[in-house]
């Protein structure tokens, strides 16, 4: 492509804007390896300091961050798995099986994604209390399943609608059952869509805060809630906070590169491809 000098200027501008936009992310990473004295100095230091791992040690030793990490991994991982197991047949049914009002089913399920958290968190709290599940991983797994399911069904449906119909029709003529069609024919073809759906489901629960705040206080707290404990009324440990934030952010940066060209589709609920 022919590059005009104006075009080149805009390219440079694009790079500068993106770089400026990421300053806060870079800043938290930098803060996490600075000695406390430098962090709290009125003049910010950008490079002339000796990197330290004290905050990473502190967040594990004093704030037991590894427990929050395990809680996050278990609750988010297990709920994502359950969501996918429930969502795949449901998405296939509304996308492909000529269900009466299939679109209405799909839209009603999607509409639940827009429910404000504060509307359902109280019943969750009362139910968990009633079953003695407050501060348990199980309570969060159940809630994150409900929380991730509407999005997963909707976006999986959009991926399934893209698949060619012929393969399934051939499968049906060969006398395969629906379950066999899903597991032998659809599953391999829809693998990218399933992966993208699972990753998005994982991300939403990974960053979730309100439900974890209500349903856990110590044993089962996930990372977002644990992070907040570095802050109390009188003292803020910016270093430990930054270390914890970096640990929580790192997988998300990996996610961004894994999702690649599917990001917009997932974020726009399938409205763009």
């Amino acid at each position, binding site marked *: 492509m022919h590059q005009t000098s104006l075009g080149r200027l805009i390219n440079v501008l*694009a790079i500068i804007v993106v770089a400026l936009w990421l300053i806060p992310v870079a800043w938290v990473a930098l803060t996490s390896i600075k000695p406390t004295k430098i962090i709290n100095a009125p003049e910010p230091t950008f490079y002339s300091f000796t990197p330290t791992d004290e905050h990473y040690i502190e967040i594990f030793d004093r704030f037991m961050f590894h427990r929050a990490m395990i809680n996050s991994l278990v609750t988010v991982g297990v709920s994502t798995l359950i969501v996918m197991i429930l969502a795949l047949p449901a998405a296939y049914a509304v996308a492909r099986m000529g269900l009466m009002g299939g679109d209405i089913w799909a839209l009603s399920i999607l509409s639940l994604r827009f429910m404000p958290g504060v509307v359902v968190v109280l019943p969750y709290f009362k139910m968990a209390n009633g079953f003695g599940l407050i501060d348990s991983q199980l309570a969060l797994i159940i809630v994150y399943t409900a929380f991730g399911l509407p999005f997963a069904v909707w976006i999986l449906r959009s991926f399934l609608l893209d698949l060619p119909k012929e393969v399934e029709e051939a499968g049906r003529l060969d006398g395969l059952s629906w379950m066999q069609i899903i597991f032998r024919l659809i599953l391999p073809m829809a693998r990218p869509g399933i992966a993208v759906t699972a990753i998005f489901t994982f991300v939403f629960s990974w960053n979730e805060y309100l439900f974890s705040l209500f349903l856990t206080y110590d044993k089962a707290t996930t990372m977002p809630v644990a992070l907040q404990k570095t802050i109390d009324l009188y003292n803020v440990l910016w270093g430990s906070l930054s270390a914890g934030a970096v640990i929580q952010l790192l997988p998300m940066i990996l996610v961004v590169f894994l999702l690649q060209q599917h990001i917009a589709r997932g974020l726009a609920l399938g409205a763009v491809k």
Partner: protein
Amino acid sequence: MSTTSQGTRPAKLAGSDSVPKSPRPGAVSRQTRRTAYLMLAPCVIVLIVLAIYPMAFSGVLSFKVDPLYNPNVARFIGWRNFEDLFDDFRFWQSIRLTVLWALLVVSIQMVLGFLLAILLDRKMRGAGLLRSLIIIPVFVSPVAMGLTWRFIFEPVAGLANWIVNTGLGLEKYSWLSHKDTALSTLMIVDCWQWTPFVALILLAGMQSISPEISEAARLDRIRGATYYTRIVIPLIRPVIMVVILIRLVDSIRIFDLNFIMTKGGPGSATLMASVYDYTIFEQGHLGLMAAYGFLILILINIIVAIFLNTLYRAEKSARVADAN
């Protein structure tokens, strides 16, 4: 799983035998429909138990007085919770603030997002990398970044104050603890996080415009701003609407960032609906909290309805204008 499918195989064979004989293409046998409902059922049951039932539970609760620390006195009190809310000026203040917040941040993010999308809509080497990098804010948790931003806006050691102080020569300032700046500071953070969301979706829309159209526009010497207002915006209008809708709903629901950065303070300068609802919980008025939660749900529905209605009218008048 394989055992069940093996077990039902003979029946399914009989069912699929009838498929070629079916008179209309796309017609579905009763057996298929039954299987479809069976496949949908687990998901729907889970959602009824974990989403619909809690919502109904909340609905019932909103007509009760139910103190958190004294559940024994719980009883129905009719519309009292709603009446109490309507009489509370802080309730109206939080609703006004939430609506103002949603309209402002969504407008800013749409404009900035569109500009950012244009900037990234380039065929340069590394454009894909830029797109991946800019979307990172959307994927980081509001808690981690909200706390980081609090550090950036910290009165003494904060980066923002250093920039304002050395760059612009202004006094250091406690951004989040003054009531005239707290809300705008929150807006800056929200726009930082969500403008890339808008940009990336609009960009995907722009890139789905067929090369023939942009080529034709180029031959007709339609360029720059005209190209975007006359060609791009009308073509990606459905995408724009979806983005506005998602952002509107999510802005009205905002909790995490608001709670983490200001908890509604100073005073009630940033007390938006969901955080206000949380403070009612902290005071232990569960019935009142449920009632407000429901009003938030209604507020979301009203705003979405107004938005869709205006949109529908605009489309209709545009069509009439085209016809003339």
